[in-house]
């Protein structure tokens, strides 16, 4: 388990979030800390039965946040490459 990149900040629904990428059990996960009182969130990219990639929260239960923040992270990564 290790830090892969420097943490970065994004804005999600007008709230600042801090994102840190880690490698856990040979997978990339993103640990998200919200600037409000919300619980931290961990998300990762998974593959569904049709072989399409999608974002999921770890553990289950915060799917909509995972999808929205996942898209923001993907945009951010593209923008710095």
């Amino acid at each position, binding site marked *: 388990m290790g830090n892969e990149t420097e943490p970065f900040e994004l804005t999600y629904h007008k709230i600042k979030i801090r994102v840190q990428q880690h490698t856990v059990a040979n997978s990339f996960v993103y640990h998200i800390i919200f600037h409000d009182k919300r619980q931290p969130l961990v998300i990762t990219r998974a593959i569904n*039965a049709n072989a399409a990639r999608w974002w*999921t929260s770890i553990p289950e239960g915060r799917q909509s946040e*995972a999808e929205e923040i996942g898209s923001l992270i993907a945009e951010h990564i593209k923008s710095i490459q």
Partner: protein
Amino acid sequence: MCYYNGQKVTRAEYIRLKQLEKAVANYDFLNRDLQVGFDYSMNAVLKRVPDKEDFDIVQMEWGFIPPYLKTREDVNKMRHGYKDPTGKFRPPITTLNAVSEEILAPGKIYRDAALHRRCLVLSSGFYEWRHIHRLNKRTGEPLKTAEKYPYFITVKDKEYFYMAGIWQPWTDKATGEYVESFAIVTTGANKLMEQVHNSKKRMPAILNDDLAYEWLFGNLEEKRIKEIGESQFPAEEMEAYTIAKDFRETLEPTKHFEYDDLPALQIA
């Protein structure tokens, strides 16, 4: 096929995600930046496996729940205070910390846990407030209300360290909810903490590796439990620095913040 978060995934992917959950569960609480009391949050605790020199890392609720409380409502009343049937306000009782000098006293709620359920609380650092009484410009007397400055305190060169803890299993009689809760054992402040936590002059009982091992696995007599609980971690192995007053709301609560008007600590 299986479902994860509403999506159909292969069995192999399902197992991978479940494995990830377990790994992340460890990661998520071990990497918490902020462990503030009074929010009765879940914290990482080393709990002995019965009759073995082995332990599990588990999450427990910070804030010892005495066994005589029956329901979560009773717990909330104890923690936040309440009005009794006559309308009189019963003030809150805080069980985040257990005073080492008193934990074994007969009748104390902590006694049985100190004898039989000792644990180690994992910490990467903790927060305390230093009180500064400014002088009244007119009279030159110290003002009654202190200005408070938050500090973050760590152990030098240690990513994590151990605090002595005691834990208690508890079941809500109304819902069946099972919870393990704990209190951090406190001792008198060392030379560094006397200056930082200068209002109460107390600190957590931080244990070096040998004492931590003994606290968790030792078959200890009462005298030794008190000795370890009252032990003082050396001030010269600790460091403390100021952080922003609104640190609880910031993304980096442990970031150093300098106050121009604050006298420096006398380094131990």
